[in-house]
């Protein structure tokens, strides 16, 4: 078991003929991911790494069963492409694209909610179930199979935490990159719920960062419903207030969204909190019984 993707997951790649799309498709196939089809409007009939390319998602799903779509499309067509995937009946959509206008993200999020689809991202590194399947850009050599679920708002920190866990022999059930834009298609709490129901996940690691109130909201869910132990870490405790730190997400506004506010909520909900990144593996180890 795992969440969202496993060894049987059939994958569609939107934007497969672009430089990044083609390269990452190659890496995904190398990890055993079942990429069945690709889409780039105007490039139908071509092949990328022997994967057939179609002009529309509709054509692709009429030929192949597709469970998830992963998107490497330009930001200006991201909304269009996500809605195309959802309208074709795909229930899990991961948008890797960076710099998507936030108003487009709000529309996609509302649309996905209406159609009961899960939108991961934008600016997500993707999802990996180590040893079985990966969608997106996560470098597979950082991960290994095991009992820890990871949800990370930062892509690169997800890699580092997983690699540090592997270094002491602790693998991961599934690792989900949330995407660190101002608005995320799917929030921390939604992913926590999936991990809560997954039999193979024994411990969940939350890698949060300053900005927004997702960690505070997740803390409320953890307090009331989460049946599995959690280790949480918040990046950016030393960042001076008011500085914009890259992701639209990482802004401190007033006292809200500060590392302090998040850590206090999470501690009050009974989670272990790592002050520094390197403390995560030993805390997780202590919780695996």
């Amino acid at each position, binding site marked *: 078991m795992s969440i969202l993707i496993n060894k049987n997951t059939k994958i569609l790649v939107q934007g497969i003929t672009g430089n990044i799309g083609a390269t990452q498709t190659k*890496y995904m196939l190398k990890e055993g991911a079942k990429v069945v089809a690709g889409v780039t409007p105007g490039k139908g009939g071509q092949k990328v790494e022997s994967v057939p390319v179609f002009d529309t998602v509709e054509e692709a799903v009429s030929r192949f069963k597709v469970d998830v779509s992963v998107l490497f499309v330009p930001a200006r067509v991201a909304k269009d492409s996500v809605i195309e995937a959802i309208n074709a009946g795909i229930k899990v959509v991961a948008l890797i694209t960076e710099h998507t*206008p936030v108003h487009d993200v709000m529309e996609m999020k509302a649309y996905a909610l209406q159609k009961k689809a899960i939108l991961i991202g934008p600016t997500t590194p993707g999802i990996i179930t180590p040893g079985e399947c990966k969608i997106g850009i996560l470098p597979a050599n950082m991960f290994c199979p095991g009992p820890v679920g990871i949800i990370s708002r930062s892509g690169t920190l997800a890699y580092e935490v997983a690699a540090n866990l592997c270094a002491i022999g602790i693998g991961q059930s599934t690792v989900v990159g949330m995407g660190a834009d101002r608005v995320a298609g799917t929030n921390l709490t939604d992913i926590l719920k999936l991990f809560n129901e997954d039999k193979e996940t024994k411990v969940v690691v939350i*890698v949060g960062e300053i900005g927004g109130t997702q960690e505070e909201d997740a803390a409320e869910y953890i307090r009331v419903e989460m049946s599995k132990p959690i280790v949480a870490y918040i990046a950016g405790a030393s960042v001076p207030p008011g*500085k914009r*730190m890259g992701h639209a997400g990482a802004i401190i506004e007033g006292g809200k969204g500060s590392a302090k506010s998040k850590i206090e909520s999470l501690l009050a909900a009974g989670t272990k909190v790592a002050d520094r*990144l*390197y403390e995560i593996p030993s805390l997780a180890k202590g919780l695996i019984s």
Partner: protein
Amino acid sequence: MRLHEYEAKEIFSKYGITIQQGGLAKTPKEAQNIAINLGKPVIIKSQVLVGGRGKVGGIRIVEDLNEVEIVADEVLKTEIKGYKPEGVLVLEKVEIKKEIYLGITIDRTSGIPTIMICSEGGVEIEKVAHSYPEKIFKFPVINPLQNIYAYQLVSAVKKIGLTGKALIETVNIIVKLYKVFKEYDGLIAEINPLVITEDERILCVDAVLQVDDSALFRHPELDKRKLDAMSERDKRLMRKGTTFVKLKGNIGLICSGAGLAMSTMDMIKDYSLLSPANFLETGGGITSDLMVDCMELVLEQPGIKAIFLNLYGGINPIHEGAKGVAKVIRERKLNIPIVAKALGNRQEETWKTLEEVGVHIIKESETQKAVELLAKLLGVKK
């Protein structure tokens, strides 16, 4: 991208929101002419993109029209928090009966635009928000896929005690402001204060409009203005999605992710003698040339004692990036310590390129180990 007050007001006015009479002046003479045309006392407002200008002489009331030229000259010459004004707004002075706060922003967690309204607008709104949060009413726009309608807002606006004409006009202003917010890809659209004057007019007296940088392709006129104000290197960095923030420390930092960068900063700061000179996130578009730009940007800062690279090769071809780093080290004959942790796709090639130019490489996944090595090379302890 935050727009100037005069730009925001121009846009608001185009959407039918009433603003004070007056205009933008770039010279004292122009200011004088605007005031004479108005024929009444004026307010002169410095056009700088920093908050709190009123407290440092950026907003002046001039009752005697003969003094406008002198005052405008002073305001035009006054730098505010290091910024030179782009001009001054010369506006009719109005008699204020009531000040209202109106703002629209995005609720990040729900991903829904939220309208905020408060009967106590003005410069102290943040204090009100802090001390009396119950005085600020927040209304989520239920469905961002649809427009809002005036009828949905009437009962909301009644809550701040408005009735009659003021109620209806305020509702209409919110509908217009929401239209601006949507059509301009706003992150914040704000009228503070919205003033009800003694002669019963409702006016937007100060305006804020912040536009999503990621959406500038839909607003070519704003995009052009932004690009015109940037250096060629800044343009190249922006196109690649690189973010740079100066922080005044002694360790130059280049990281391939924002979370990774913040986490690295936290670890560097654990050493009292070390602190990051900057935040630099490359974004997902690393090339050899981009890393040359990044290295040069970091090296321009005074007092850099070492450079710390923390890179992951997921989407980023770090083996290409390494070539740019090596090029700068060779060309500049750099002799400060450079520590790199670079992992992911094609990491072995990356290490080889960097080792050849004397970069200290940590091949394990723990950033902490690399920070410890950095501290050791600089001879500092926690």
